[in-house]
């Protein structure tokens, strides 16, 4: 297990290559989740509270899209952003920005679908009371988002877990360029095929640790919410 020992050495010696890759991965995935939340929370609240023709269809499609294959999202964003594509003039293909957009699209259905479910459940419970208190539409949304805040936080973390672990979209729209668009997952794929197992394993360990940490935080947030808000 000399590769394993080397992997641990890379991690604990603060190897700059390894940590710049980790840094970029975090930057891309956190930005993607933030972007997806800005769109996904209002979209989820809208679907939870507003009845319109075709709503069920939208909800079903959104739920199905929680399992979108990353490579397909990557391909779609690639086609949009490529030089001849409709958004080619932006010139952001093979940059971290393109990766953020692609991951945000990947995570958006997860955040919107989970937020819709959470807010709809809470609305079912609160409807009579808020109606009796004559809370207007804006006040209702604010109340539901606030009272569901701990559940919505775990929604964000679920989105982050998905974004940080996927390889398909960032590989396609980022291009895995060394020192520029190389993330943990694309680096693991590349280094493994090159035979540089210590770096691949080191990144793998960091990635798994991050995912565990994120889930630990999610659990803690939920517990705290139960204690504080009931």
């Amino acid at each position, binding site marked *: 297990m000399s590769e394993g020992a080397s992997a641990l050495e890379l991690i604990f010696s603060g190897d700059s290559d390894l940590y710049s890759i980790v840094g970029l991965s975090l930057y891309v995935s956190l930005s993607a989740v933030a972007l997806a939340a800005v769109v996904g929370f209002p979209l989820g609240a809208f679907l939870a509270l507003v009845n319109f023709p075709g709503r069920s269809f939208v909800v079903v499609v959104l739920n199905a899209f929680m399992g979108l294959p990353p490579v397909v999202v990557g391909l779609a964003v690639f086609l949009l952003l490529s030089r001849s594509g409709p958004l080619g003039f932006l010139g952001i293909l093979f940059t971290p920005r393109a990766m953020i957009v692609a991951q945000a699209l990947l995570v958006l259905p997860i955040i919107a679908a989970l937020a819709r479910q959470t807010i709809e459940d*809470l609305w079912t*419970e*609160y409807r*009579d*009371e808020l*109606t*009796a*208190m*004559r*809370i207007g539409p804006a*006040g209702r949304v604010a*109340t539901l988002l606030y*009272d*569901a805040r701990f559940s919505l936080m775990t929604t964000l973390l679920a989105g982050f877990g998905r974004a940080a672990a996927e390889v398909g979209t960032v590989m396609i729209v980022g291009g895995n360029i060394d020192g520029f668009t190389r993330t943990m997952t694309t680096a693991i794929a590349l280094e493994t095929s090159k035979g540089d197992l210590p770096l691949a394993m080191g990144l793998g360990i960091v990635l798994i640790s991050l995912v565990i940490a994120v889930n630990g935080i999610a659990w803690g947030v939920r517990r705290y919410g139960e*204690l*504080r*808000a*009931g």
Partner: protein
Amino acid sequence: MANFVRGERMHGGMSDLPIAFERATVRAGAVTILDEITLTVSPGAPTLLIGPNGSGKSTLIKLGMGLIDASEGRVTWGGRTNAASPRRAMVFQRPIMLRRSAVANIEYALASRGVSRGEQARRADALLTQVGLRHLKDRPARRLSGGEQQRLALARALACDPEVLFLDEPTASLDPASTKAVEDIVRATADAGVKVVMASHDLGQAKRLAGDVVFLVRGRVAEQARSAQFFVAPATPEAKAFLRGDLVI
């Protein structure tokens, strides 16, 4: 509950009373839930809506609250058909607690009435004291017992400074001690001049609280009378049977 605290009144002089139901009918699909209800709710001692389950008590309360519309006929509040008034409050059979602390539940209602932040704290404290929950103010509301939740729901409804308070079987699932605590608050509220309209299928409770009684059977007003008269000398065979303890369906 002698030291009853009222919110500061900020009404523009428009009263919601009397509430007049004029041949009000409510249907849900093919089912008629309320059938040509004609009834006037006037200021004074509590009006108790009694009758068997499914007789339309809850629907009548929602109609009076303005939460639902009459399918036919109409309801007027102080002569107005406009139901959008902040001067009516309601407590449901099962209290709906916001996922916040007890005091935050009350401050929420105060904030919805445009009460300033500093004033919210002062009034919330007074209301919690009034319902005997001041020592639990920071407890998450959903962690309170059923009886405590119902008292908190009452305090929250009173925070809206209502002229009329609708109560839909607030003690239906409470033990006797909790029921007494709720009844004490209801009595103090009525004594302070708030018109209480309360549904109950507990005859003892109706006797204890009612100024007048509306007896509903199958969506119709079978009898309406002063409490003293209704319980001693009911006029209709249905009411006689109900008071005897027969099963009125």
